[in-house]
């Protein structure tokens, strides 16, 4: 990922800053500038997610590429934050530990880097709570 493109969403990734449509009440993390339900009627403000949630579904990735190549086998999961929105994440736990409904909480980790001389990308992952 290019430095500009990563940097643009850096605060969001570091601190789980998403958006909230005050018109319909929906929370979005990953952030959306435009509420899909209210569209132009939606008033969007920022919000910071608490960082806790639960596992909705998951898999164990056995073969991957790029920055995740050496992490296999790892758990990839869709989790639902307490605020209601869902996101996809590397879930750091033993591969036989994960189950649907497992409570999780956020941690700060490296997401990747652009090679050994490139920028390092940081962000939020999750662990069992």
């Amino acid at each position, binding site marked *: 990922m290019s430095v500009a493109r990563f940097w643009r969403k850096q605060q969001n990734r*570091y601190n789980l800053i998403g958006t909230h449509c005050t018109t319909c009440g929906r929370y979005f993390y990953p952030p959306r500038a435009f509420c899909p339900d209210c569209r132009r009627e939606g008033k969007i403000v920022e919000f910071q997610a608490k960082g806790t949630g639960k596992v909705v579904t998951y898999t164990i990735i056995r073969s991957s590429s790029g920055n995740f190549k050496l992490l296999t086998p790892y758990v990839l999961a869709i989790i639902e934050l307490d605020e209601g929105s869902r996101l996809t994440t590397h879930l750091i736990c033993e591969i036989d530990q994960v189950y649907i409904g497992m409570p999780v909480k956020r941690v*700060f980790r490296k997401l990747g880097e652009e090679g050994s001389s490139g920028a390092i990308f940081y962000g939020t992952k999750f662990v069992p709570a």
Partner: protein
Amino acid sequence: MVGIISYGAYIPRYRIKIEEIARVWGANGTEISRGLGVYEKSLPDMDEDTITISVEAARAAMARRKIDPADIGAVYVGSESHPYAVKPSAVTVGEAIGATPVMTAADYEFACKAGTAAIQTSMGLVKSGMVTYSVAIGADIAQGEPGDALEYTAAAGGAAMIIGNDDPIAEISHTCSYTTDTPDFWRRENKPYPRHGGRFTGEPAYFKHVIGASKMMLEKMGTKPSDYTYAVFHQPNGKFPVQAASMLGFSMEQIKPGLAVTYLGNTYSGASMVGLSAVLDVAKPGERIFMTSYGSGAGSDSFDITVTDVIDSDLFSRDAAPKVSELLADKKLVDYAVYAKHKGKVVMME
């Protein structure tokens, strides 16, 4: 009075036994463990580094007390393993705790005492009224050259101290330092592993400076070792701090609570600070803490700290973040091959 407003520590979950490292190099693991007084050491996960450790430690400190990130005026991260040679770890920490953009920041290096140097700078900024809060972090994912003695102890971890004036949980009555140009341990730019002077790292280095700074502190404060409940010394292994304590007149009871190295290893810039965190995990109001760090190159920073009532008050919540003992207990043992993979010791293609 200036003091510690909050604190937090972080230790990665992975561990390797000293015996396992010895096995690979054909050495006697039992003897080495006993000789060093270290049995296990920590290592980072594949996606952890000094910055992620610093952030977790800083967030732990923020969790224990209601601090408005906008009041944080400075962040300093001391380490020997900053992920970038140029681009400070401190700015990522600042952003991850919501302190940016109105703050100053910089990274520190002074071998294992970079974190305590950051505490001293923080004290100056706070005492002078330049900032409300300053965050001082010492963290490392230390490098040990394969097959070298230091490989047995070079570990990963860190701690954060938030320094301020208002209602500290522990007041820092005084700090003083003993610094010289001593080549006991160093790492050249672009080299992956440090080098050291073997036995030279003992008397002319660690002991000269730790004892030097400690004696200065006791003299300045007019105190005796028995005036303190706890003593924390830099802990590169399990023997040096015990010896230093003995030389100064501190007892095993006083140093034991802050001696994390036995099952952690030497977290370099994190070492003294993690030791101090372990003490703060159990300290009671009124108890006095004596701390002297050590960084090769060389220097020692000494601190005289007194715990206040605030530590047990509603303003502070010790249980809101994991204690050092809990971090040490949450562990996953690996073998040398996995250790090498995690520490980047396996030669990869670009």
